C-alpha cells in the first residue's frame, strides 16, 4: 500500500493511496457477499479500477461460528490498473472469531484490522478453537492496527425504536461495517442507498433500518476518536465509455444472447445444475425474450445430448457444467465431433479431482477438454482471461462452432465465474457478424460435402424439402455420409476431422505480446490467471527485467505465430492452477523447454509468487 501524504480535508487527516486490498469476512449468515458487492459498486462509482474474489463454503448455511462456515469477499481497487483481487490484505474486517482465525494470516503487518467485539463471546471463541480471546492478546494490537468495534450494539442502538425483532435487527449489522469501511476509504454511499431503496421498496422498515445502520457506521468512523485518519483513492485512468460491473458467468450468458441476436438462430442451452456453473442456466432462464431456450436436464449427458439434438434441428446447442459434469459429457461430445454439428461447451472449472472443492477455482480441465473422449476426437478450445472477456469468448465460440460445424470448448473457472470487474460496455454492432447459412439447394447435395475453405459440411434444417438425409455416430464415407467400414476412408476421415479443427487457426489474430518481442523470459498463460500474471510481469518489467508475457485465448488450435514467438526468448515460464497442462502441450508441440509454475490451492495464483518465480528463473536484471 504505497502512501503519499495529502492535505488533510474534513475533520480528519486523509491520505492518498493508489490502491488498497480489503476483505470482509464473517459467517455464511453475516451477508459478507452482499457487503462486498456493495463496496465494489461504490468503488466502481468512485471511478477506481478493481477486481474481486468472493469465497464461500460448499455448505449452504453452515452452522454459525464454525471455521468451515466462514464466508469472505475480497477486492482490490485503485487509481492504477488493477489486475487481481490482491495477494495480501491492507484491511481485514472480521465479523467473528472464526473469520479472524481463518483470514488473519493474509493481513499485512501494520494492516487495518476491524472486528465486531460483540461476536467474540465464549461460544464463538470455542467454535473457532480459541481458548482465550485473541483480542485481549496485546501482540495483536502491536502487529496490526486493531479496531475493536461493538458493531452489534451500535447497530441495535441505531434502530432500537424500529419495530423489528432481534433476528431482523441483527441481519443489518453488516451494513454498519459497510458504512464504516466506506468512510475509511471515502466511498460514496449513494449506490448503496439506491440499492436499499430498490431492494426494500415494499418494506419501508427494512429500508429505514439498513439506511440508518449504514449511516451510523459511516458516522462512527467520522466521529469516533479511534480513527485518526482515512484514505482517498483517485479515479483510475480508464478508457472513456459507459461501464458496468460484470461477472464471468453473466458475461458468458450475455455473450450467448448477443450471438442469438446477431445470428438470428435460436440458442438451446442444456444444463444440469452444478457449482460454479449453475448461475449461467439461471441467468439465461431470465431472458426468454431473446428466444433462448433453457433445458434443465435430468443429468449432464442429457444436457449435452439435448443440445446436440437442438443443433441437429438447426438451433445452436450449448451445454455448460463444471469438471465432474463435463467428464460425463465426453461420449456425447464425440457424437457431435463425428456428426459434425455445432456444439458449444462451457466448462467452469473447479477444484478436483472428483467432487473435490466445488466452490473453489482451478485450471485443471485443459487436458480433459483436449482429450477427454474416446479415440481421435478433436475439438476447438477457447479460454477467457477476465470476467468481462467471457462475453466475447462465448460469442466467438458460437461463431466458430457454426462456421466449422464442430464442438467448441470454453474453459472458464470459478474465479472468473463469480469474480467481477468494471466492464466497458461494447457496442453490439462492433461484434463480428455470425452468418449462418442453412443449405436448401438440392442440386448436388451430400451430407458430408465440404466447404473448401473451412472443410465444414452443409448444415440442413430438418423440414427442408428434398434434403432428407440420415447421419449417425458410425464412421461414414466422406461426402456421401453413408456408413463405411473402408479402412482408407476411416484414415481419411480421422485426418479430415483433425484438419478441420486446425483450419480454425485462420480465425486467430496475431498474438499480442505484453513486453519486448525478444528477451530473457516469456511468461505464457491462459484463462483466469491473466490478472496475476500480468501484474507480476509488469512488476518485473518495472524492475527493468527483460520479461514479456502472452495470454492464450485459443488453446486448440494454437495461434499460428506461437512457435515463432516462443523461440524469441531464452526461457519460457507457464504459470497454471494445475500440475502443468499447457506446459506439456507447448513442450510436445514446439519442443521448447518451457517450465511450469504450479499451485493448486483452489485460489487465484498470487502475483507475488509468480514474480518470485520469474526472478528465480532469470535472476537479477541483465
Amino acid at each position, binding site marked *: 500500500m504505497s502512501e503519499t501524504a495529502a492535505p488533510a480535508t474534513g475533520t480528519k487527516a486523509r491520505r492518498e493511496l493508489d490502491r488498497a486490498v480489503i476483505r470482509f469476512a464473517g459467517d455464511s449468515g453475516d451477508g459478507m457477499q452482499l457487503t462486498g458487492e456493495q463496496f465494489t459498486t461504490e468503488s466502481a*462509482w468512485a471511478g477506481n479500477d478493481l477486481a474481486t474474489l468472493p469465497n464461500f463454503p460448499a455448505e449452504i448455511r453452515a452452522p454459525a461460528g464454525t471455521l468451515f462456515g466462514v464466508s469472505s469477499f475480497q477486492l482490490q481497487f485503485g487509481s492504477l490498473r488493477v489486475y487481481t483481487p490482491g495477494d495480501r490484505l491492507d484491511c481485514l474486517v472480521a465479523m467473528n472469531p472464526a473469520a479472524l482465525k481463518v483470514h488473519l494470516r493474509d493481513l499485512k503487518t501494520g494492516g487495518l484490522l476491524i472486528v465486531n467485539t460483540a461476536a467474540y463471546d465464549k461460544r464463538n471463541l470455542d467454535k473457532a478453537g480459541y481458548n482465550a480471546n485473541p483480542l485481549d492478546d496485546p501482540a495483536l494490537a502491536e502487529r496490526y492496527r486493531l479496531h475493536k468495534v461493538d458493531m452489534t450494539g451500535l447497530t441495535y442502538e441505531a434502530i432500537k425504536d424500529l419495530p423489528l425483532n432481534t433476528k431482523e435487527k441483527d441481519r443489518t449489522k453488516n451494513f454498519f461495517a459497510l458504512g464504516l469501511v466506506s468512510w475509511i476509504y471515502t466511498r460514496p454511499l449513494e*449506490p448503496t442507498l439506491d440499492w436499499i431503496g430498490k431492494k426494500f421498496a415494499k418494506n419501508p422498515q427494512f429500508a429505514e433500518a439498513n439506511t440508518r445502520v449504514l449511516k451510523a457506521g459511516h458516522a462512527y468512523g467520522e466521529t469516533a476518536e479511534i480513527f485518526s485518519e482515512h484514505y482517498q483513492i483517485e479515479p483510475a485512468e*480508464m478508457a*472513456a*465509455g*459507459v*461501464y*458496468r*460491473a460484470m461477472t464471468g458467468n453473466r458475461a458468458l450468458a*450475455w455473450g450467448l*444472447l*448477443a450471438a442469438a*441476436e446477431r445470428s438470428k438462430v*435460436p440458442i438451446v442451452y*442444456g444444463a444440469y445444475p452444478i457449482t460454479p456453473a449453475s448461475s449461467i442456466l439461471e441467468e439465461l432462464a431470465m*431472458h*426468454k*425474450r*431473446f*428466444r433462448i*431456450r433453457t*433445458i434443465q*436436464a*435430468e*443429468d449432464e*449427458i*442429457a444436457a449435452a*445430448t*439435448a*443440445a*446436440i*439434438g*437442438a443443433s*441437429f*434441428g*438447426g*438451433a445452436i*446447442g450449448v451445454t455448460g457444467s463444471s469438471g465432474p459434469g463435463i467428464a460425463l459429457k465426453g*461420449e*456425447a461430445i*464425440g*457424437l457431435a465431433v463425428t456428426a459434425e454439428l455445432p456444439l458449444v461447451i462451457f466448462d467452469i472449472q473447479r477444484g478436483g479431482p472428483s467432487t473435490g472443492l466445488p466452490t473453489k477455482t482451478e485450471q485443471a480441465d485443459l487436458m480433459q477438454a483436449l482429450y477427454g473422449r474416446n479415440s481421435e476426437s478433436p475439438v476447438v478450445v477457447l479460454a477467457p482471461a477476465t470476467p468481462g472477456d467471457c462475453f466475447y469468448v462465448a460469442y466467438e465460440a458460437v461463431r466458430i462452432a457454426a462456421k466449422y460445424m464442430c464442438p467448441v470448448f470454453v474453459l472458464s473457472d470459478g474465479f472468473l465465474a463469480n469474480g467481477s470487474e468494471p466492464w466497458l*460496455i*461494447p*457496442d*453490439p454492432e462492433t461484434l463480428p457478424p455470425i452468418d449462418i447459412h442453412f443449405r436448401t439447394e438440392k442440386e448436388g447435395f451430400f451430407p458430408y460435402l465440404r466447404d473448401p475453405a473451412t472443410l465444414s459440411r452443409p448444415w440442413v*434444417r*430438418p*423440414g*427442408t*424439402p428434398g*434434403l*432428407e438425409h*440420415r*447421419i*449417425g*455416430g*458410425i464412421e461414414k464415407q466422406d461426402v456421401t455420409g*453413408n*456408413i463405411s467400414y473402408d479402412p482408407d476412408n476411416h484414415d481419411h476421415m480421422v485426418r479430415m476431422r483433425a484438419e478441420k479443427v486446425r483450419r480454425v487457426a485462420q480465425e486467430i489474430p496475431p498474438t499480442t505480446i505484453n513486453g519486448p518481442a525478444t528477451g530473457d523470459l516469456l511468461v505464457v498463460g491462459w484463462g483466469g490467471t491473466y490478472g496475476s500474471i500480468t501484474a507480476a510481469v509488469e512488476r518485473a518489467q518495472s524492475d527493468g527485467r527483460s520479461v514479456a508475457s502472452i495470454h492464450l485465448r485459443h488453446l486448440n488450435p494454437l495461434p499460428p505465430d506461437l512457435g515463432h514467438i516462443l523461440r524469441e526468448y531464452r526461457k519460457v515460464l507457464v504459470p497454471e492452477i494445475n500440475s502443468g497442462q499447457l506446459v506439456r502441450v507447448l513442450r510436445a508441440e514446439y519442443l521448447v523447454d518451457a517450465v511450469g509454475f504450479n499451485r493448486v490451492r483452489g485460489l487465484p495464483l498470487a502475483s507475488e509468487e509468480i514474480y518470485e518465480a520469474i526472478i528465480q528463473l532469470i535472476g537479477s536484471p541483465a
Partner: protein
Amino acid sequence: MSAQGAGAAATPAPKYTKKDFESDQDVRWCPGCGDYAILSAVQKSMPDLGIPRENIVFISGIGCSSRFPYYMNTYGFHTIHGRAPAIATGLRVARPDLKVFLVTGDGDGLSIGGNHMLHVLRRNVNITILLFNNRIYGLTKGQYSPTSELGKVTKSTPMGSADRPVNPLAFALGCGATFVARTVDRNIAHMDEMLKRAAGHRGTGFLEILQNCNVYNDLAWNVMYDKESRALHELRLQHGKPLIFGPPDARKAVIMDGVLPKVVDAGSVPESALWIHDERNVNAAKLLAGLFAPDFPVPIGVLEEIEAPIYEDVMLQQEQRAISERGPGSIAKLLTSGDTWKIG
C-alpha cells in the same frame, strides 16, 4: 399444431405411398428378424400421417433396432446408446414444428437409457416412442437384457440371470406416461392401428412392440405367436369394451375382485360386473400392465391415453408471454440496463 401434435405444414402434404418412405440404404438386419416387419409397417403408416416427409425425423440410439432411421426416407439421426430421448427432447424444444419418432430397444431404452426414458415420459415431450422389445441385446450378440426373464441363460449368464425383469408398460406408467400401448411384430394389422394411435397422441406416445430376435432369442414371445396360445391369451383392449378374451367356445373375462384383478368365465358374471376398458383410467392401466400369461391374458392395444401439459409447449408459451409482455430482447438495451457509470 395439428392433431398429430406436430409436423403438419401450412401446405397440405403430397399424396405419398409406402415407397416414398423407403431410403436407398441396404437394410442390414439378419434375415428373418422381426425388425423387417416393423419397418414395413412404419413405412406403410407414414402416408396416413398427412405430414410432409421433410417434417418427419427419426431419432434412435444404438442397437439393431436403432439402425431403423437409415431405412426411412425422412430426416434421421442414429445417435449414441440410450440417449435418444434426450436428443429428441432437445430437437423438439428447438423445432416444435417437426414430427419426431424415437426408435429404441429394450437395452437402449431401458438399460443404459432408462433415466432419459423416465424423464422424457414425465415431461410428456411430444414424440412417438417405438420400443422394440426382443428381451435380449441383439447387436452385441446375445447377452440378457432388462426385460429378459429371471434365470435367463445367455452368454453373459451361463447359470441364468439373477435379476427380475422390468415390465416396460408398468415402468412407463410409473413414470407418468400419458400414452401407453403394446403391439406385436407379427400382428401387422394391429401394429398398423397402434402406430397410428401412438403417432396421433399429443405428448409422449409410448408403444412397446414385442419383437422377435430369431438369432439370439427366437420365439421369446411365442405366447403371442403360437396360434393356440395366442387364442388363449391375447386380450385386445378396446376403449369402452369389456375385458373379454379367449377362444369363442371358452370366453373369459378379467374383472376386479375388490382390489384384485381376477379371471372368470365370461358367462358367469353379470354385464354390470364386467370391467369396461377406459383408456383415461390411469389406475386401471397400471393393473392391466401387470397382467401376463399364464395366469392372466396378455393385453395388447392402448392401455392408457390421457391429456397432460407438454414440456416444450409450456416452454414456448412462456417465451411468447415474455415477449408479448416485455417485448423481444435487445442486447444493446440489456448491456446498458441496471447499474452503469460513465468514465471520461
